[in-house]
């Protein structure tokens, strides 16, 4: 299978009070196109930092990161913005919808950043919202939506520019178990039906079990990699 994400000897440290504090060490990780990978770890294990690096939001201190064969470390801010815009869809634990902006406009935003004309963006945003079963609430602002509804809008937004990769950082962390289940089903749906590559960051071993591969991270190092695939949804 084609390697989509290739992390080699990634090292990341933060300078705190003049001291170098290593957050990630010796990270070697490859994600193939169409894979559904879980990254599991306790809080403070460095999994969020790893996600930021994969999401081109942060640069590693050393090591190499190739995304679709292109070296992320060599890119400037503008190129990184483009990668985030076209190649990666983000789903956050706290949804991060833009307030006082309707669901459909939230979904439009990445397309507007990509330079797509407003009417075209609007059309596609509507279709995406219908796909996540939010067709009825397109004009609602985020403060009029429940947590599960917000996360569905966020997933629609992550799909706006049809990215290859979806990066989900604790997407069910702020939801009750029933809505969390629905959101997970949505990810499986995207994976199976649209062939998206999904990287799911979670601290929950049960959720991780559903994914094809489970990467465990502890104290900034990958401690184990196992096969999962115990999803019984379909």
């Amino acid at each position, binding site marked *: 299978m084609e390697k989509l994400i290739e992390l080699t000897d990634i090292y990341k440290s933060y300078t705190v009070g003049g001291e170098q504090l290593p957050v990630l060490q010796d990270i070697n990780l490859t994600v193939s196109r169409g894979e559904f990978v879980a990254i599991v770890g306790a809080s403070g294990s460095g999994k969020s930092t790893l996600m*930021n690096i994969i*999401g081109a*939001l*942060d640069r590693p201190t050393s090591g190499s990161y190739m995304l679709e064969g292109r070296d992320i470390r060599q890119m400037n*801010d*503008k190129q990184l*913005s*483009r990668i*985030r*815009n*076209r190649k990666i869809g*983000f789903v*956050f634990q706290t949804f*991060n*919808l*833009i*307030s*006082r*902006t309707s669901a459909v*406009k939230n979904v*439009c*935003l*990445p397309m*507007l*950043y*990509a330079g797509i*004309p*407003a009417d075209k963006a609007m059309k596609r945003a509507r279709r995406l919202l219908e796909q996540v079963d939010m067709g009825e609430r397109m004009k609602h602002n985020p403060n009029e939506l429940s947590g599960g509804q917000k996360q569905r809008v966020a997933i629609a*937004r992550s799909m706006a*520019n049809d990215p290859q990769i979806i990066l989900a950082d604790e997407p069910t962390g702020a939801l009750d178990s029933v809505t969390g289940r629905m959101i997970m089903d949505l990810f499986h749906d995207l994976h199976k039906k649209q062939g998206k590559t999904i990287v799911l960051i979670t601290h929950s071993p049960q959720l991780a079990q559903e994914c094809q591969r489970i990467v465990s991270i502890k104290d900034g190092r990958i401690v184990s990699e196992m096969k999962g695939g115990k999803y019984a949804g379909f």
Partner: protein
Amino acid sequence: MLVFENISRAISGLWANKMRALLTMLGIIIGIGSVIGIVSVGQSMTNGISESMREMGVGNITVSIEEKSDENRQGNGNYFIFGRSQPRREDLISDDMIAEYRRAYGDYISHIYRTESVGSGRAQYSLTEEQINAVGAGSEYAAANGLNILTGRFLKEDDERRQRKVCVVSSGLCSRLMPGEDPIGKELDLTINGRLYVFYIVGVYESDSASRTQTVYMPLSTAKRISGADDGYQSITVVPAASTDTQQFTDATERFFASLYSANKNYTASASNMESMVESVTDMMTNVSLAIAVIAGISLLVGGIGVMNIMLVSITERTREIGTRKALGATNGTIMMQFITESVIICAIGGLMGVGVGLIIGNVGANLLGYSAAVSLPTIMAAVRFSMAIGVFFGFYPAGKAARLNPIDALRYE
């Protein structure tokens, strides 16, 4: 388009924080309002003043004699002993010269009128006394100056030929000296230069009754006898025909009279019009009001700082939003544009409201000063543009700060 998205986003943001937005805009509103107010009051005053100067006859050409400057003066080495000499009879502008001038340029001339200032004095009727200014005027004066005769008549050629002691007085003087009476044919005692003369009123002209000293017109010949002046005139006033170019005709008139005076040792004649004077007064007024407006503009600076402050607050509040936008693919430039747009919108709305306030100030101010209000569209455009420029200038630093936010720090911000 992202621009429209930014604008609608900025407006909805302002709407969500109405009080805050209004307070932020207040500095801009006051700044723009006072600039526009001052400029339009200044403009109204300038218009009012130049209009009243025009009514005094700005298009008229004054031909007057003047002594030749020292280097041009021929002979007469002992002039310094006597100082500046009085013009003698042959130095004055004569009726012959005027006739010759009229023959040469008749087509360009509407009227020529001659006046002789007699001096100030008092007018007395029964027991009332008023300050007056006595002027000798030719029969053409009323028409040339647009004097509106209310009752009776203006001075006639016949009055001048016979040196009649008749006069035309203002309606203001009549109403104060003889309220309710018919002034025509009444005797009026005029004390001029300490001597008493008795005149008959033959006409009344419309005047601004507010002015303290009123002008009384008498025949030229009578005026000359009272003032002891020779025949001829120190100055005459030419009213050019409507189609005549005042400036060109002034030059032509000057050349004509200068050639008549070329043989005169001591005097020459020059022609001038008041247009240039009106121009310089207008320029001065405009400069003064601009200077005050610039000072008022300093309050715009304060307003701009207020905008910058609220932009910094807004960016701190929306750190997470900025992080999210960056994660969704917004470049630094996109974020920068978003916040500059927001600050420009604040300033533009503030500027427009300021224009409204300024127009009110300008109208009220001009009315209080008794001028008709003048609104200068270029000033309004300039003010709105300037306030938008303030938006760009004071939005630049906060927007740059927002653009430079590290996306992960911004996303993690609580």
